[in-house]
């Protein structure tokens, strides 16, 4: 009897490994090895044909580089702005959509549009709106209203390009926050609110004392997830403006968009980015996710 059970377990063990082996092999070749290789490259002066060991020199160079720090703080600012912005907007919309009203079905579809439309389809429309020479934004605020200077270039000026990128990111990603929060909001029992109403609570009281504590956990999880994703977000930023200057673009420009690629330096920056992300991911796994 004992033997039969252990043979079944053994069979399960081997079948399990057989079934996950494609996953494991792909993971090894395309994730684990590249991550290790990346750390290896970061200690070398890596050219197209030759490579020499330079120790920590790449890191020292990166840390001394003013452009890196500028890019780093832009990335942090971008991440904070987009996380806070999308959480606030998503929360507001989720609270509104949690109520019954006519036409809710159509509004629900509209709200999801920014998130589901392919990035490449919507990004040119945004570029068109903010185009410095004939975009509708400049036509309205500069030519008609005169609120901004006609020289203002929101897309190609490296000082403010990340701002438009942030607005675009909030616009695109708040539906994700909204969906997550809404599904949590809908699971709060109505009785809580009814009981509070009998006690004479105002809407604000109800929000701070019932809604907020209930969704607090989901909100934290979503914020952390968005923070992780936005910290290394490349395409949404790069396609809006090449000059937005966040760290992923900084790396990209050093490897792809140049005739003299600096692989070692780029790898060092990627490693730094990875360490920061690992911190965030560990926090996420420990506090939030139960897999």
């Amino acid at each position, binding site marked *: 009897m004992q033997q039969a059970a252990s043979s079944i377990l053994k069979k399960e063990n081997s079948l399990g490994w057989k079934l996950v082996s494609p996953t494991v092999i792909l993971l090894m070749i395309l994730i684990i090895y590249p991550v290790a290789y990346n750390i290896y490259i970061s200690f070398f002066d890596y050219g197209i044909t030759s490579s020499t060991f330079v120790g920590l020199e790449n890191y020292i160079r990166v840390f001394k580089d003013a452009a890196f720090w500028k890019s780093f703080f832009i990335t942090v600012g971008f991440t904070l702005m987009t996380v806070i912005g999308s959480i606030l907007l998503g929360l507001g919309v989720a609270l509104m959509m949690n109520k019954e009203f006519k036409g809710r079905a159509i509004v629900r579809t509209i*709200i999801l549009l920014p998130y589901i439309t392919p990035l490449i389809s*919507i990004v040119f429309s945004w570029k068109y709106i903010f185009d410095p020479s004939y975009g509708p934004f400049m036509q309205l605020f500069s030519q008609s209203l005169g609120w901004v200077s006609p020289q203002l270039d929101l897309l190609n000026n490296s000082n403010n390009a990340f701002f438009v990128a942030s607005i675009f990111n909030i616009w695109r990603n708040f539906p994700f926050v909204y969906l997550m929060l809404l599904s949590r909001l809908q699971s709060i029992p109505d009785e809580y609110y009814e009981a509070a109403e009998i006690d004479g609570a105002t809407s604000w009281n109800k929000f701070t004392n019932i809604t907020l504590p209930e969704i607090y956990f989901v909100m934290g999880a979503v914020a952390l997830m968005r923070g992780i994703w936005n910290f290394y977000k490349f*395409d949404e930023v790069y396609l809006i403006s090449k000059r937005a200057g966040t760290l992923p673009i900084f790396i990209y420009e050093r*490897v*792809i968009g140049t005739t003299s690629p600096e692989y070692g330096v780029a790898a060092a920056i990627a490693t730094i980015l990875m360490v920061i992300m690992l911190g965030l991911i560990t926090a996420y796994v420990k506090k939030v996710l139960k897999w």
Partner: protein
Amino acid sequence: MVRKKTPFRRVMFALGISLICFFILIPFYFMVHVSLKADYDPNKMTFSDFTIRNYLEIFGLIQSSETEFFGDEIIRANLEPVLKRIDELEERTASIEVYTRYVHDVQLKAKEKELRDIVDLVIDFSGIDVTDREEFIENSLVPGTEEASIIEENMKTIFSANDVKRFTDLRAEVDNALSEEALAAGFEKAKAQLELFEAQKTKILEERASEFPFLKYLRNSLIFAGISALISLFVAILGAYAFSRLRFKGRGLVQRSVLFVYLFGGTVIMVPLYQMAVKLGILSTPFGTGVYLIMVYVIQTLPVSLYMLGNYFRTIPFSIEEAAIIDGCSRVQAIFKIVIPLSLPAIVTVYIYAFMIGWNEYLFASAFLGLKSYKDLFTLPIGLNAFSGSAHAVWGRLMAASVVSAIPIIIIFTLMQKYLTSGFTAGGVKE
């Protein structure tokens, strides 16, 4: 018992909802508007009346030549200076003798004149007393003579060190100009320059002839995203079944590694993936590049597929499989005969997610395909982005392409909204 809303609050609420919808829809409005109205001529910047020409154009049903958009004059104006330079260089590099004559007659004369002018300036500026100006200048151009050292001394007080160095360099160059090595080097350089201009010429002419290959981009995107999603789905079905049904050693570790990828970005592994491909020579053929790109997409979409399918498989009662196994089905047969048919909605949902990740991907496509510029493999994101940066970009066609590439996704989403939104909240997203 719910309190009645006041009319004021109801109006405010409706206003809020409309405002949100308004801000969401602005970019979509301009997308459609411009695609239906934009005129071709970017210099005129006027929008003509309603037209579906942009759509016909991107599907290749009609073809306007570039001349029609931009006029011949602009192209001719671009071409003219290039052609002129090519003529000059061709004449000069006909043979080494011709080149030597050119250096002797034209280049050297000009440089000598420059040197003379500088010396002249120095004499005037520092008030050197000279009897025969011409002779003095002539002598001062030969290094080591008395005149030359006088000039150099004075120069140091007037010019910066850099300018003095430039002067001596130029003088050395003039002295060496007719030596064989210098001539050969100069000849090679001129030839290289000629090649550069030739390339520029063909670029102007070819770009002029190229139309906007939207359908090709669309097909490539469909192939890359479709195949990678299919592979990812297959691998994920096996893996997710193992995660949700079987106990085996190291399950936790594998699951955690998958989660790691789920949160991990493309930027971090771009450098090593690129280096690996270059080292192995994968990027030297279009086929290898395509396969590599598909494999990278598979690994990007795999975590989402594994996670969503695993969650779904756990909701299927094990007793159904158990019955089949007792009836003589093997475990693997049970997956294909029982589990897959039962979880078809989830499988379709997962496929759509995986497909959308590949459809939107920009970073790796641009890194791998852009390197050797395999234009025939360009996907929609890089193809459209490259087109938008070229001199021939026209908003109307770009927007029409945007609309066409968005509509299928929006339709699929609207039809399957119920499944797909529950997929979002179940953690089925990866960016």
